[in-house]
């Protein structure tokens, strides 16, 4: 094994598709084993990241369509009649059913097919084994399986658009009983979800065992980069929070196909006629099971992003992160607490004031570690000689954006103010600030930061800045108006807001928001071009172009199969920048 490492390390690596030089006395894998059904964590990581970015783009397109309906509900677009067909687009207008499909699938795709896979499957898979100095994940075949279970899950979700009755249309939360009596797309949604849950289960087991068992010599838990800690806690959340959703999906599937009534109360009347089921079910049961997953899921969406941002910030402030241990302890506490806050999504369901009070208290408690983490990152900037690289710009923008997202959550976590804000655009603004200019900016920071490790080439700086500044402006143009719309009382799932007094009063804001979204789409063009062009013509850089300290930069770029030329040994903590007396301003973990 050691011999094959050394052998590979000196071979010029080929990042773009074909196998490079064959036959150095060591059988090369065929193309399909090396790039399609690969068991190499780096290939799987890239597969995850690319698939997830495609889904991210697709999810964005769904929303761009919805934004037209919201901004111009009475201006027909006749050329779309033929493209979308009678059921979805009639005489120039999107049908309400199609609008609901787009809404439900936008949420589902973004959360389950784009963000989680890119953060955990993509960055986690590629970076984590490198950062802990491991040759691969603990279970390479399981890793491959996890990706190839995710793909059919995604395809089932997408395929539901092309069925006769269309995709799921009951929101990404699939609230019962609406979802139980919904059309067939919902069944496909549930099946797709079972695949995605299985995929993340396999992935999370793999990550935890890898971190526990595969760390390089000398790499104790408190020498781990914060990114690894974030992934570890995330894996526990995925491991323990997803199964209840699987249970809920099974129950809802039974309700839909086997005629049970777990979520159907007695005496339900649909379209004027009584539903012929046994009844006696409980719609709130679905919400409890769903949010038991979906609140920890929020932290699944944000913790790896915080991990990425911490790496980028540590590297660009050229001094140690402020409060590394505090960050770690806060993250662990956050992980625990995230299991006991779920019902703050349900204050308005009539579950009772005692329950609400409990969940309001836990929600206020969980905001403490989040604030501590953000504070540590902000204090890290204090007095630093900041390098304004493109990844750093995204990481810096992440901080206030995530801050806005977090702070606007407080009024939603308090039962009294939630009465007014519940289910309005304010909620949409709040969680999008966390996930869009928050997590997605962290994803961009990560892409710009680790691209040289994946390809051996750097993304273009000018195009990066051309991507960053417009994105920052337009993404705020999309989501900032939503807070005001929400406070004006605009309900979040309306097909035509102008039909309502609350909506028609703030319609200009809706239009600003829509234009922001479309311009945000345009602002991604420099990135898309930069991404593909740089694979081939990007500036070639050394193995450690950012002068970073963590172990992934000790491996060649791109790292060969088996990762390291020689097994690395770790001598120090992850962020030893500007150590007094050191020859250079960074002291890599693996250099004695």
């Amino acid at each position, binding site marked *: *094994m050691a011999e094959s490492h050394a052998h590979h390390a000196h071979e010029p690596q080929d990042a773009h598709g074909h196998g490079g030089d064959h036959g150095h006395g060591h059988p090369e894998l065929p193309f399909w084993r090396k790039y399609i059904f690969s*068991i190499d964590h780096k290939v799987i990581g890239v597969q995850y990241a690319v698939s997830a970015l495609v889904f991210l783009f697709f999810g964005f397109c769904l929303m761009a369509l919805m934004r037209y309906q919201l901004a111009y509900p009475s201006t027909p677009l006749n050329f779309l009649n033929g493209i979308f067909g009678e059921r979805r687009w009639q005489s120039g207008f999107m049908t309400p059913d199609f609008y609901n499909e787009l809404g439900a699938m936008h949420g589902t795709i973004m959360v389950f097919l784009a963000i989680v896979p890119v953060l955990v499957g993509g960055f986690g898979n590629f970076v984590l084994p490198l950062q802990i100095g*491991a*040759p*691969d994940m*603990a*279970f*390479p*075949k*399981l890793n491959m399986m996890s990706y190839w279970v995710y793909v059919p899950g995604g395809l089932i979700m997408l395929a539901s658009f092309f069925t006769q009755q269309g995709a799921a249309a009951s929101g990404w939360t699939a609230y019962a009983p609406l979802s139980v009596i919904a059309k067939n797309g919902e069944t496909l949604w549930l099946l797709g979800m079972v695949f995605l849950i299985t995929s993340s*289960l396999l992935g*999370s*087991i*793999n990550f*935890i*065992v890898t971190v*526990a*068992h*595969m760390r390089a010599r000398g790499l104790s838990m408190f020498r781990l980069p914060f990114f690894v800690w974030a992934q570890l806690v995330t894996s526990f959340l995925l*491991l*323990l*929070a*997803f*199964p*209840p959703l*699987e*249970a*809920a999906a*099974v*129950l809802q599937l*039974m309700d839909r196909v*086997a*005629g*049970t*009534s*777990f979520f159907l109360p*007695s005496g339900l009347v649909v379209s004027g006629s009584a539903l012929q*089921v*046994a009844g*006696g*079910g*409980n719609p709130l*049961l679905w919400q*409890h*099971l769903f949010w*038991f997953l979906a609140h920890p899921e929020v932290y699944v969406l944000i913790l790896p992003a915080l991990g990425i941002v911490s790496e980028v910030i540590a590297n660009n402030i050229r001094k140690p992160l402020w409060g590394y241990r505090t960050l770690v302890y806060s993250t662990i506490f956050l992980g625990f607490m995230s299991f006991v806050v779920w019902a703050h999504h349900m204050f308005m369901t009539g579950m009772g004031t005692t329950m609400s009070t409990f969940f309001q208290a836990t929600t206020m408690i969980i905001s403490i570690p989040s604030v501590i983490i953000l504070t540590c990152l902000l204090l890290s900037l204090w007095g630093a000689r900041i390098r304004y690289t493109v990844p750093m710009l995204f990481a810096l923008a992440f901080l206030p954006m995530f801050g806005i997202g977090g702070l606007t959550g407080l009024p939603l976590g308090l039962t009294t103010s939630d009465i007014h804000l519940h289910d309005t655009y304010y909620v949409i603004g709040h969680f999008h600030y966390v996930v869009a200019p928050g997590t997605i900016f962290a994803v961009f920071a990560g892409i710009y930061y680790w691209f040289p490790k994946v390809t051996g080439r750097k993304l273009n700086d000018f195009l990066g800045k051309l991507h960053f500044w417009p994105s920052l402006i337009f993404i705020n143009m999309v989501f900032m108006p939503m807070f005001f719309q929400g406070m004006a009382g605009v309900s979040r799932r309306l097909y035509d807001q102008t039909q309502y007094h609350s909506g028609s009063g703030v319609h200009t804001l809706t239009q600003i928001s829509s234009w922001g979204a479309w311009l945000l789409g345009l602002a991604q063009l420099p990135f898309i071009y930069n991404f593909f062009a740089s694979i081939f013509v990007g500036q070639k850089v050394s193995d450690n172009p950012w002068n970073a300290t963590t172990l992934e930069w000790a491996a060649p770029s791109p790292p060969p199969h088996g990762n390291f030329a020689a097994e690395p040994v770790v001598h120090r903590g992850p962020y030893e920048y500007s150590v007094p007396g050191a020859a250079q301003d960074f002291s890599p973990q693996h250099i004695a």
Partner: protein
Amino acid sequence: MTMGLPCEVKAHPITGIYNGKFAVWLFLASEVMLFGALFSALVLLRAGAASWPHGYTVLNVPIGTLNTFVLISSSVTMVMAWASLKVHDFAKGRQYLLWTFLLAALFLGLKLALEYYPKFQAGHTPGHDNFYGTYFVLTGLHGLHVVGGMIVIGYFLWPGAHLWHENPEHYTNRIECTGLYWHFVDLVWIFLFPTLYLL
């Protein structure tokens, strides 16, 4: 390829277990959450129901009891299989593994022929009411776990048996992991039986 990853067969010095065993424990933790959610759903539905029959008035307690013994026996043979492999007696280990497989099949056979089939005959389908709904979902999901266990045991009995001759320690470890899972499936039934049949 992936030979020679750390802790694939030997225990890790700090955790004291090898990769596979760690993974199975984590998997079982997620299984606890899965069945935990379903048990919680049962409690919530039953607590809120206008009427809910006592299990012993509608379910076949004698067959359930017999099946409990069948499953416990299969857990015993599972341990015996692992213990035999530990002392390098492959023939005996395989024999016990076969017994485990057959007992699992007997459990499913009794369940399907003497419980599910008569209930469907009598029109007591999952849609009949939430009692039968939860009964079929919980026992059905448990049954699927038994089938999954049979597939794994069958694999190590027949196509996967050659691993013993290549790396007996690795094979023994895999039987240990299978056993952990099998005991969990058994344990779920130990909870299911009183909850559904006796209360």
